[in-house]
């Protein structure tokens, strides 16, 4: 990794430079909130965003995507396209970059997922530092920082960005698109100051040190029933989660019934039929069992495989959940002995 400094007023140059070669996707405003969307004009970019409604996973695994198209009559695959559009995801916060790396574990290990892989390989990541907002508990998981998983990373130093360059592509890009300069000792000092300020501004992060242990111990805790009675089984939490990856596969026929598309669509383990098998046996028939599964899978099951927890503490699920089911509160309640929230 090496470092450069870029004056803030150069930002439009960088974005335009990128846009000449890539589809640039960054945070823009939608109503009172923010979304990642194609940026057609650098002034649309809202680098002051707190969080987005959907995480960047939608650009690697769209909510609905075609796996292949087929002909019914002779069972032939007639089309199978990998999306290799050159893209830049601009302005990702550390939690979301960490989220992507957790997705990578699933989709790039074991059987490689060609669709995910193609998008991942053709996408550059430009990271951006942030300040914790109300719902963040990334620090509790150690996902508040990111040391790889990006091509370049911008840290806001007021009138300039401290640019960390991680990849060759990142370095090339910077060279081609925008004027930067060498870092000075003052820049480094300021960079450190900003980083410390960031660290200091976290308040009341939950203690997650015992989470796997707690989950093991509290499998039959009444807390799960309480959460279950509230849960709408709506799945909103899974949709907005940067690390929820479950999907369903459906065949859709064209109106003439001759050809069709096999599609992958986002699914949620909170839906009632997620674990139902033929003849109606449902391995998680109760809402309580399904809510519990979300926590066990994320903070215990995944951990057992990849030595990380499948949560980056972004707080999106808590704000999407109308039933006020919030992992942070659940963790704190379990830590406090369980029994009720």
């Amino acid at each position: 990794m090496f470092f450069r400094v870029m004056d803030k007023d150069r930002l439009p140059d960088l974005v335009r430079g990128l846009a000449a070669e890539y589809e640039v996707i960054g945070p823009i405003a939608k109503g009172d909130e923010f979304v990642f969307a194609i940026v057609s004009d650098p002034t649309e970019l809202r680098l002051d965003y707190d969080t987005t409604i959907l995480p960047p996973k939608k650009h690697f695994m769209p909510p609905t995507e075609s796996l292949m198209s087929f002909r019914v009559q002779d069972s032939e695959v007639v089309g199978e396209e990998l999306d290799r559009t050159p893209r830049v995801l601009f302005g990702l916060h550390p939690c979301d970059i960490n989220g992507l790396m957790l997705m990578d574990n699933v989709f790039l290990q074991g059987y490689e997922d060609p669709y995910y892989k193609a998008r991942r390989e053709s996408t550059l990541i430009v990271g951006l530092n942030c300040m914790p907002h109300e719902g963040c508990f990334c620090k509790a998981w150690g996902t508040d920082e990111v040391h790889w998983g990006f091509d370049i990373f911008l840290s806001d130093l007021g009138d300039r960005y401290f640019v960390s360059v991680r990849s060759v592509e990142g370095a090339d890009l910077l060279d081609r698109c925008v004027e930067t300069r060498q870092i000075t000792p003052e820049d480094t000092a300021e960079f450190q100051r900003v980083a410390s300020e960031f660290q200091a501004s976290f308040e009341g992060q939950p203690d997650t040190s015992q989470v796997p242990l707690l989950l093991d111990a509290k499998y039959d805790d009444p807390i799960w029933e309480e959460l279950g009675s509230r849960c709408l089984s709506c799945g909103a939490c899974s949709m907005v989660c940067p690390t929820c990856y479950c999907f369903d596969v459906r065949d859709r026929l064209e109106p003439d019934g001759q050809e069709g598309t096999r599609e992958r669509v986002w699914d949620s383990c909170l839906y009632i039929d997620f674990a139902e098998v033929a003849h109606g046996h449902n391995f998680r028939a109760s809402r309580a069992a399904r809510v519990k599964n979300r926590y066990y899978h994320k903070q215990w099951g995944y951990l057992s495989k990849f030595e990380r927890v499948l949560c980056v503490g972004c707080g999106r699920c808590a704000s999407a959940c109308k039933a006020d089911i919030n992992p942070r509160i659940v963790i704190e309640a379990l830590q406090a002995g369980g029994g009720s929230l």
Partner: protein
Amino acid sequence: MNPTAVRRLAAYEQLSANPYRPWPARITSITELTDKETLFELRLIDDDVRDAFKFESGQFVEVSIFGVGEAPISISSAPSKQGFIELCVRNAGDVTGALHSRQCGDIVGLRGPFGRGFPFEEMKGNDVLLVAGGLGIAPLKSLINHIHDTRHEFGKVTILYGSRSPEEVLFARQFDMWRHRDDFDLHLTVDQPDETWDGDVGLVTNLFERVDVDPAKTFGAICGPPVMYKYVVAEMRAKGMEADRIYVSFERRMKCGFGKCGHCGVGHQYACIDGPVFNYWEAMNLQEAM
């Protein structure tokens, strides 16, 4: 490398390049077993893909019917038989129903094989106690046939198989013949007998009174409806078998078959890649397993 090997390797790479992509296979034989279950013999159409397709007993394939969907189905034939696979399929919904309406010569899609099968090599030299309930016989049938094909490498082989009624006994004809063999100790039981039934009546667990087990040199293999496992395992344990010598095969909802879609979670494992065959020692520690 010789040209054939190169070609096979290429086919194999193709097979694994996109694990979502089904390969066309032809239905080469259809045998109705019961009202609801049918045995399908399938052959992958591409020669090289077919040659590259290797599997173990207990593994499954995703059967794909374009326009309808996919369903995980255990391979019922033995790995020792190559060039085709047999699937014993119950008509239980969309895909399995559509498969039942297909005819000999029709083409469907196949992906796989997926999952962990039974530890065949490890079982060699030992006694084997296989317990099946209903359709659970499908994956065990592969193991039984495989053992049959290498019978001399195994000790005592006992099969306990429970069905709801005589009409629902799968592979009845074959088992009928086997009942009179002395290299397989086969016991069939039904819950609801009719006048034609001269075998045992009652749950499959009742059959345990009749079997002698040498726990130190026996492997257990279980597959059946979700409610069955707990009771069968208890019987095996009562016979002194260690948890790590018992293997169970689980059914879960599955979409991809290789650890991505998240549907088949059993505790912290996935039935598709960590199973469907689990060592009971592992399974014991999985929440929601039984």
